[in-house]
């Protein structure tokens, strides 16, 4: 049978053009590109919503939107950013890079790969259309707590079903990645030689298939409680609103590591490259990632310390949550040790990576503070939490994505981007981001609760600062858009290796990477050289 397959390969495939190329593609690079562009559009959309939030919060009093719409913005901002921005972006990177990194001709299931992507625009069309429905878009927060969420208008079933669709997409994407990594590695690419980006994605994929179905179950119960008279979250019938929180956070906490583990992977590619020194503690990086993933399943109730759990529960979830600091610390220390006695240069990807290490760690510290139950009684649902998660998400997940784009853009397009513009983008982003999110710690500690369109006067100054920062940060991202388009259009020719210190199979193929890489199995000697480095 292999003769037929080979014959087919040798045939020149039909070269599709225009919209058809993108609609019907089974090529991992095309699909990766689709994912990345889609996520960028979602990032602008979610960011636009954030700017509406920040504009309303610019000063006390209500000036722009009514409270219901404000809550819709908060809810949609988070859903769009998480499910439309960060998750698809990392899947896009996985699509582009994993086959190239492990020496595979494509993803394991190319047609399903196409489907994973093309569900997304449909699902988001459904979700975003709720903005125009009777009763408005969902406004109960991205956490969708019952019973409040049951007060949603016509948007309700659309929200639930769009989450189902997003879940189907994620699970198929995750399955594809697992099959690819487990089955498609070139001979010689043993598990413990895989680049860390591949490792962290493998672990992330397992998190996805374990928790996304749980989210699907949770929202299904919301649906039946609303429309079919079930009592899952209704105490009168023997249910409990807090049950929803437990199920949601069993998904929700691993979800935050779904958003950050691939980012850790990206860091572990970039930092050694620009330190010109092998990654310190490769094996411990792998074990640390796995430990983080494991622990993430037993910490969920740290989001619910104030619901009135028994003391034993509060203690358990406090201790288990604190433990996550250890493997995460190992990662941070390893990155620092990688830089130690390297020969560092500071191209844009490295700048973003350094900012990641510092600012993510700050977000991690506030996370650790939140884990301390008695103190969390004060922090919970205040802007301190908002500050915490934006520190791990924006200079965490988003910076890692941006760094990854700068890092691999020359490989994708064959052109170097403008380093000067990149540096502008970096400094504008890094400064304005802190202006936006740092003051949130202060107002949170001083007592400002989250999810409000208006606030007491003592919070006015810091909120004004935050808003100014947010607009600068947002505008800076337009610079990034410009830079990327410019780089796609043209620029200095990039070499195959692109960066002096780069190692890995993806740097052995020409830039831009041809549509089909590794239809021919890469040489195992090359693999050995590129992965020991």
């Amino acid at each position, binding site marked *: 049978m292999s003769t037929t397959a080979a014959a087919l390969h040798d045939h020149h495939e039909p070269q599709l053009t225009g919209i058809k190329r993108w609609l019907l593609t089974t090529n991992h690079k095309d699909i990766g590109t689709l994912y990345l562009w889609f996520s960028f559009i979602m990032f602008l959309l979610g960011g636009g919503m954030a700017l509406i939030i920040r504009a309303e919060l610019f000063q006390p009093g209500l000036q722009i939107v009514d409270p219901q719409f404000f809550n819709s913005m908060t809810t949609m901002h988070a859903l769009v950013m998480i499910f439309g921005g960060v998750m698809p972006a990392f899947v896009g990177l996985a699509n582009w890079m994993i086959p190239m990194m492990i020496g595979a001709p494509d993803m394991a299931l190319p047609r399903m790969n196409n489907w994973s992507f093309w569900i997304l625009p449909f699902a988001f069309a459904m979700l975003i259309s709720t903005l125009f429905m009777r009763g408005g878009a969902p406004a109960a927060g991205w956490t969708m707590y019952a019973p409040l969420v049951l007060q949603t208008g016509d948007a309700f079933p659309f929200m639930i079903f769009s989450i189902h669709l997003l879940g189907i997409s994620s699970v198929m994407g995750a399955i594809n990645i697992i099959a690819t990594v487990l089955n498609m590695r070139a001979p010689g690419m043993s598990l413990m030689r895989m680049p860390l980006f591949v490792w962290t994605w493998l672990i992330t994929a397992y998190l996805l298939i374990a928790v996304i179905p749980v989210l699907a179950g949770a929202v299904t119960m919301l649906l039946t409680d609303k429309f079919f008279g079930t009592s899952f979250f209704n105490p009168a019938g023997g249910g409990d609103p807090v049950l929803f929180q437990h199920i949601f956070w069993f998904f929700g906490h691993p979800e935050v590591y779904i958003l950050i583990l691939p980012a850790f992977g990206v860091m572990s590619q970039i930092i050694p490259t620009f330190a010109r020194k092998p990654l310190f503690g490769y094996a411990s990086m792998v074990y640390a990632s796995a430990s983080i993933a494991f622990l993430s399943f037993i910490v969920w109730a740290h989001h619910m310390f104030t619901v009135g759990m028994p003391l034993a529960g509060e203690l358990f979830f406090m201790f288990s949550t604190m433990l996550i600091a250890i493997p995460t610390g190992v990662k941070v220390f390893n990155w620092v040790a990688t830089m130690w006695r390297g020969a560092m240069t500071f191209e844009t990807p490295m700048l973003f990576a350094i900012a990641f290490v510092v600012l993510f760690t700050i977000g991690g510290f506030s996370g650790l503070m939140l884990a301390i139950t008695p103190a969390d009684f004060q922090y919970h649902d205040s802007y301190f939490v908002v500050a915490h998660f934006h520190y791990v998400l924006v200079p965490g997940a988003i910076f890692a994505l941006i760094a990854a784009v700068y890092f691999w853009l020359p490989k994708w397009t064959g052109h170097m981007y403008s380093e000067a513009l990149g540096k502008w983008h970096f400094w504008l982003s890094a400064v304005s981001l802190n202006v936006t999110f740092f003051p949130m710690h202060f107002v949170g500690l001083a007592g400002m609760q989250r999810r409000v369109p*208006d606030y007491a006067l003592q919070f006015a100054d810091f909120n004004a600062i935050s808003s100014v920062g947010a607009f600068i940060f947002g505008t800076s991202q337009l610079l990034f858009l410009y830079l990327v388009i410019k780089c796609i259009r043209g620029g200095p020719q990039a070499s195959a290796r692109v960066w002096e210190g780069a190692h890995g199979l993806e740097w052995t193929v020409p830039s831009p990477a041809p549509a089909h890489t590794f239809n021919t199995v890469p040489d195992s000697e090359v693999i050995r050289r590129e992965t020991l480095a």
Partner: protein
Amino acid sequence: MFIARAAWRLLVGSVILLAAVPALAEWAINMPRGVTPISHEIYDLHMTIFSICVAIGALVFGVMFFSIWKHRKSRGAKADNFHESQTVEIIWTVIPFLILIGMAFPATKTLIKMEDMSDIEMTVKITGYQWMWHYDYLEDGVSFYSRLDANSNKTRQLDSGLNPGDVPDYLLNVDKPLVLPVGVKIRLLTTAADVIHSWWVPQLGVKKDAIPGFINEFWTQIEQPGVYRGVCAELCGKDHGFMPVVVKAVNQDEYQAWLQSQRDVTPKTASL
């Protein structure tokens, strides 16, 4: 009007941005130390953990930036090739672990204290509604609703044209505060009539969700008379931001007098 105020804020915001550091002390930038034994403990815990994090941060970032400065290629650094050391790895696994244990002890102690419901002297049941609170003094048969004060309510409407700056305690004032005696261990019960709310008064070091169909209990013991303001902390719909909590702590005599005056106005109904 709006534009003018917006412009003013923009200006103030930018100025503050530049002059931020020295002025910090004048603003509320930290958790209040509060007025209950528990709130003090929480504050101390918060400061301890925070300081430890700052110290670790200073160390880690210090090493990193030193390396960035020292081991940069433009300075002629040559890359080393080491990439493993079991000893170091063990050290930086064990030391954080020990630090965490050090944090866990005081945290556990405080938590256990908070859960201690013995020696209760009185009980108030708090019910959250969209969007107000209902207080019910179980032993004394006094009960009433507590809503956002009319002044704030008028001003906070979209395009009201009113200036929040003119309203005393904007959004933190109610028509009728919860009056509590000082020096007494008070049991508080929270529940809700519609969706989940959360009763939060930072100065008392308490925040507890009010969940429909269930009752959560916790306690507080206020040390000084005064007015302590808080908010509903759990998203509860459109007016979540507009259902503040105001606790007025008074001494025992005043409290008894207040109770008496309330008994006269509260109709005698079962306190459910």
